[in-house]
């Protein structure tokens, strides 16, 4: 532990570079899992779901930023904040994608154009549950567990 700390002190550039690389890997995995793959699944099932590119890129950068802070600090209270922020980013991206939760489109049947509106606000529930509440609760539980272990020691 001391040796590692000494090494880190000796080469802060290497430490930051390593944190950047690891947080980049973390953010790619989290972005794919929490944002891109769920979006692709949703858009393959329901047509006309928009993809606001700036929100997606911004979301990825935000992911990278919070994971970098997490790597550098690696403190449990910070982890709770990171989980909260991660959930907020996921929610913000999907709220931008769903735009009020109404998807519109047109079907043509025997020469009649049928305009439809599908209410898909229901998809926000699993996004909030599994992208926000579950990670937040697990990090809080992890924090409480670590405090109990510290007190026992």
């Amino acid at each position, binding site marked *: 532990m001391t040796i590692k700390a000494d090494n880190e002190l000796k080469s802060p550039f290497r430490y930051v570079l390593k944190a950047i690389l690891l947080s980049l890997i973390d953010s790619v995995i*989290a972005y794919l*899992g*929490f944002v891109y*793959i*769920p979006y692709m*699944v*949703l858009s393959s*099932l*329901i*047509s006309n779901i928009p993809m606001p590119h700036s929100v997606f890129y911004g979301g990825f950068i935000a992911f990278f930023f919070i994971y970098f802070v997490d790597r550098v600090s690696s403190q449990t209270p910070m982890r709770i904040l990171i989980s909260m922020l991660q959930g907020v980013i996921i929610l913000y991206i999907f709220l931008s994608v769903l735009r009020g939760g109404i998807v519109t*489109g047109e*079907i*043509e*049947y*025997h020469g*009649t*154009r*049928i*305009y*439809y*509106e*599908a*209410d*898909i606000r*229901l*998809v926000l*529930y*699993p*996004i909030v*549950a*599994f*992208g926000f509440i*579950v*990670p937040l609760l*697990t*990090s809080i539980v*992890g924090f409480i567990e670590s405090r109990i272990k510290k007190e026992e020691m």
Partner: protein
Amino acid sequence: MRYTTFLSLISVSLMIISLVVIGYPIYTFIEDAENGKFDISLRDIRIIKLENNSILLNITVYGINNGGVRITDIGVSIIYNYTTLTNDTYEGSLNVYVGDISPGDVVKKNVSVYIKGIPKELYAKITVRMNISGYLPFKMTFETPILKSGA
């Protein structure tokens, strides 16, 4: 594997499964509607001429579901407008509750519309509100001529 990574994987998997559970009935329904397996239409239109220069339209609202998804709480709202032979324009509306249609079922509802004057053209804007699989609100709107001039 760290336990946080494991929990994240579980969360992501459950999120994707939930999205599929919600999205798949909509996908199936739209496919069915495009292929004509689900149909809400106005048929058997009968015109009864009344004595006081007006007519009565007897319409049957058909709901046919040969698709794979159960559709519940179907409500049909019809807004009609017509121009009479004396070039007067009127508008009216009626609501028909069709109810639930399970796959393979056909539902018929008869409605009567009183039309003041003799129309030369009658157009209807039909809005169908329903719940796909009982929990996904869906609305379809289309316009159709019921009586055309020269017909």
